[in-house]
């Protein structure tokens, strides 16, 4: 579906990271964590293509969806200049979200950089399902960590890694994961979730090679159509060959993803 949605709120929450609320009743009532929307940031022919954004959170009561994005290129630059009352043309919800039907008690979530965006929607759903949650969150600088109090209040175990040593562990989130897996695994049944840049997801894949529970990864890719037609966002999946991140994913079983190199 194509929706014309009004922006109801837009804030810069920290340096270059923005949170935007959009009135989108149909998406707010049907989206699943891990799905994305495909936005035409401006009418006209330049920039030409839509941009995919994972759904950060939904607010069904207000019929709103929330996006979290970093101003990094032309598209997000244009988005960041928009104000409440402006409208956006978007498609969605698109793609296959996380599979939460499998039975587990404890979710371990690894989030890196803007990969944290879909994690909050995931957490909201996991809390509804009364799962125990551990969030390992890696960012460049401590100021990119937000909602820390809310997260802890919800009873989520939060561990933070920063590359600039401004908060938590100095280093990568994958260090936190290795340490966590070596010390904390109990007789709970676990399920793992990872969202972030490809290099981080690849690293997580190596780390979790020996653990015996399922990991789902949400991948990012350049896309044109967003619905599996242009074949521009292929990823190699074990035994299935090329799959499309937009249509078959963006969530895949981590162990089945074949990364380059």
């Amino acid at each position, binding site marked *: *579906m*194509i929706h014309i949605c009004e922006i109801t709120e837009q804030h810069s929450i920290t340096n270059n990271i923005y949170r935007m609320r959009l009135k989108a009743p149909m998406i707010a009532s049907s989206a699943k964590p891990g799905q994305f929307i495909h936005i*035409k940031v401006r009418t006209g*022919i*330049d*920039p*030409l*293509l*839509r941009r995919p954004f994972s759904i950060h959170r939904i607010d069904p009561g207000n019929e709103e969806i929330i996006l979290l994005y970093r101003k990094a290129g032309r598209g997000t630059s244009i988005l960041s200049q928009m104000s409440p009352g402006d409208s956006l043309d978007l*498609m969605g919800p698109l793609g296959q979200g996380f599979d939460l039907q499998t039975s587990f008690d404890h979710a371990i979530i690894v989030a890196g950089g803007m990969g944290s965006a879909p994690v909050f929607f995931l957490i909201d759903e996991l809390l509804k399902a009364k799962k125990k949650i551990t969030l390992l969150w890696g960012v460049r600088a401590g100021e990119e960590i937000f909602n820390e109090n809310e997260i802890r209040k919800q009873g989520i175990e939060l561990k933070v890694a920063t590359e600039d040593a401004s908060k938590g562990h100095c280093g990568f989130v994958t260090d936190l994961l290795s340490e966590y897996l070596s010390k904390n695994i109990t007789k709970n049944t676990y399920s793992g979730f990872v969202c972030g840049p490809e290099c981080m997801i690849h690293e997580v894949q190596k780390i979790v090679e020996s653990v015996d529970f399922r990991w789902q990864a949400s991948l990012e*890719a*350049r*896309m*044109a*159509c967003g*619905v*599996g*037609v*242009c*074949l*521009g*966002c*292929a*990823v190699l999946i074990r035994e299935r*060959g*090329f799959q499309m991140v937009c249509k078959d994913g963006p969530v895949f079983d981590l162990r089945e993803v074949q990364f*380059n190199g």
Partner: protein
Amino acid sequence: MVDLSVKIGSLRLKNPVLTASGTFGYGRDYDEYLDIAQLGGIVTKTITLNPREGNPMPRIAETPAGMLNSIGLSNVGADRYLSDKLPALKNVDTVVIANVAGDTIEEYGEIVSRIQDQSRIDGIEINVSCPNVKQGGLAFGTNPDITAEVVRISRLETEKPLIVKLTPNVTDITEIALAAQESGADAVSCMNTLVGMGIDISTRKPLLHHILGGLSGPSIKPVALAKAYQIVQVLDIPVIGIGGIMTWEDAVEFLLAGVTAVQVGTLSFVDPYGSIAIIEGLRLYCQKNGISKVENLIGGMIQS
């Protein structure tokens, strides 16, 4: 009532707007967004005899008012096309054109022969112009003799309308178009993508894995219009215009330049409903201007 129908050889299209190969899947992928029966026709994704995985990533990149692609003819192959994809179009009231390609001249004959008895296929478009397949370098469509041979061999296998999709990446496109006509093509579609590239200056890497790719989108429209116009001047068979068509105004321009129908490509990625909007715009334009048949627009440019 405006009569929007046009004829491509023996094919009657209900209107002159088709969706271009590679931008509309195998025909049903955009069902959620539009009623495909409203289209003049659908050209399905290029198929080859055997399935193809396609090129490594990255396969696409955005450019000013355009995009580069190097998909590499990723497709399900002829068998699955016939068993899974084509049957899904069975009861759809629109024209279906199968787009085919081969690695060798003989393979064009084989693939045409394989699909040509399907009643659901109303026409066959021969892709001699995909610049992404590395088969000794240049596409078949850059050489008039090879183009003629590909068309001749395909013509032997079928009586269905045969359309040759031309590449603009040649010195003189009219030479290739004439070769196609003389070898038995019923129409040509003009044009495929322009060869292009881009480099990320922060990483110094090419934007596409294969470095060179095909440029499409509104930035190529003036080039496509010129090529179509040039071909129309020399051919007797119909020309289907393709290249950067985003609006009904673009479609009118192509018709005035002399094409009989248009194909809409990259637009579908941006706006899946765009092709239908073009048909509606065409109808309104004709109504407002007292044009009873869209065919009367064809070649209607007035030279000053």
